[in-house]
């Protein structure tokens, strides 16, 4: 679905991405993992045609980012890290705006229903909670019925309930036939959500595989956790005590 070969991005004084290659398969949830400043966002934005690359080759659904940036924009949905929305408009009006920008004929309310925000139709984006904001952002990525959606740290700053709620939404979207590319700092999230992950470190890919395989490889190399692994973790305790129900 996406093929990135030898991608390089140089800024004036430093190299953000150096010789990075990976592939994303159709209908999978692909995770780009790595510390801050590793080049995840830069890589995503180059694939999304928002940034020029220095060199390398990127093919999205058979289209080259160099030759067909507009055709690619038509078939992808993009959620940016920390992007805002047009001021003073309510959610319905924002969806209408994006429908116009994409040239898509959709019913705004349907889009809000997909992310369970129909009750907030007349609310302003600013008035939403963190989890609602992220779900709304995801709704805007679905307007043009994309083949691939890109989510840049969608769960950062959310509470455990909102985070799990968003995982469900992302899995739902994938099950409906959309390929998902996601970045995150949370390894538990990647482990539960992603079919395959790539580790990015200093602008290079240091590993690409399924979470299971990566874990097995480490164990096979003789790694052992210092603390014995229990059958539940603290988050499980938190969720079981505070409930799965999501607070607005």
């Amino acid at each position: 679905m996406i093929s990135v070969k030898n991608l390089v991005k140089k800024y004036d004084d430093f190299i953000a991405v150096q010789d990075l290659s990976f592939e994303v398969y159709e209908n999978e949830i692909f995770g780009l993992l790595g510390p801050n400043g590793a080049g995840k966002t830069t890589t995503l934005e180059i694939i999304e045609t928002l940034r020029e690359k220095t060199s390398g080759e990127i093919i999205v659904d058979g289209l080259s980012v160099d030759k067909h940036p507009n055709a690619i924009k038509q078939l992808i949905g993009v959620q940016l890290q920390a992007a805002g929305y047009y001021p003073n408009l309510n959610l319905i009006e924002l969806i209408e705006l994006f429908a116009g920008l994409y040239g898509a004929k959709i019913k705004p309310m349907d889009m809000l229903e997909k992310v369970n925000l129909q009750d907030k139709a007349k609310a302003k984006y600013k008035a939403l909670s963190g989890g609602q904001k992220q779900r709304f952002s995801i709704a805007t990525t679905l307007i043009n019925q994309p083949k691939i959606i890109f989510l840049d740290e969608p769960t950062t700053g959310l509470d455990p309930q909102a985070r799990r709620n968003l995982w469900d939404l992302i899995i739902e979207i994938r099950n409906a036939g959309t390929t998902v590319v996601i970045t995150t700092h949370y390894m538990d999230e990647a482990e539960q959500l992603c079919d395959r992950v790539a580790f990015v470190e200093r602008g290079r890919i240091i590993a690409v595989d399924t979470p299971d395989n990566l874990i097995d490889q480490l164990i096979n190399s003789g790694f052992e956790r210092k603390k014995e692994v229990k059958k539940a973790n603290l988050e499980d305790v938190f969720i079981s005590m505070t409930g799965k129900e999501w607070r607005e």
Partner: protein
Amino acid sequence: MNDRNSGSALAGERPKAYSNTTATLALAKASFRSIMRSPSAVVFTLAFPLIFILVFGFLGGGGTRIDVGITPGSDINNPVISMLGKTGMIRLVKDKSKAEFDKLLEKGNVDAMVDIHKKVNTSAYSVNVVYTSASRDKGGILKSVLNNLFYDKTLKPTVAEIKERTVTGREYKTIDFILPGQLGFSLLSTGVFGTAFVFLSLRQTLVIKRFFATPVKRSSIVIGEGIARIGFALIGALFIILIGHFFFGFTLVHGVVTVINMLLLATMGIIVFMGFGFIISGIAKSESMVPPISNIVTLPQFLLSGTFFSIEAFPTWLQPISRALPLTYLNDAMRKVAFEGMGLWDVKFQIMILLIWGIVIYAVAVKVFKWE
């Protein structure tokens, strides 16, 4: 989400069907809604100019009170004067010297003068009326009031003749001067502040970046935003003109045609002023930098472009600066069109200056404007 597959199947055709016009209009609609809900836009475009118009409108003697001066030496105890007093519209001004009255008449502070004398050897009176061109409309009202009075049965036998004359006073009413200036100020602030704030905040909050992830063209973003702002400014302008006309007697020589000409001038003005806004949004590094830079652009024009006072009233060394500013020419053209009834071709010189400003500003804007 069930129709996702059919949607994907159409994906190859979608780029062809993509309409830049739809995208531009969607943006214009969104932007217009946003502007209408933005308190600062409404305050700067409508409230401020209207407050100034209200203040000056009342200062300039709005309403239908007619001030009629009694010429010193005139007979005061006669039926004509008492009938005039009874109409309720007319305020008689007495006890001023001839020289004072002449000045007041010239400025239009007194709308007319009457001088009444008993004709020698008869019981009839001779009424001498002097109108002023500074206040033609009120002179007209007085004229019809007088005519009515003299056809009044009780008065008729006592009045022998009415002599009328009009003096040439100042060209027009306060509102005729103030309103075009306020209109220009409204266009200037909407164009400069509005555009600068919107593009800076869209850039900083990554709204524009998110737009770039859609197939929309940059030109659509600028044009859509422009349409919304021009539309908003013209609605504001129309509002100001109509309030001025119906409540304060703002002169529109050719009625609707004059209004249309004024709106066309307003469009040219707002486009030029938006150029300043584009430049400021490019230069400013944060929202707090927008007001000071915008004020550098708007304040001198506000003060020096004949918004409140005629440029001729400024010291000579200041006048060349006034004559360099675009608002000066917009104000000038507006006044000529509204009060003197000129067409757009008659103010081509002013339009040309605006055009030159437009070219220069947009040349700079293209250089300094930032998308991200």
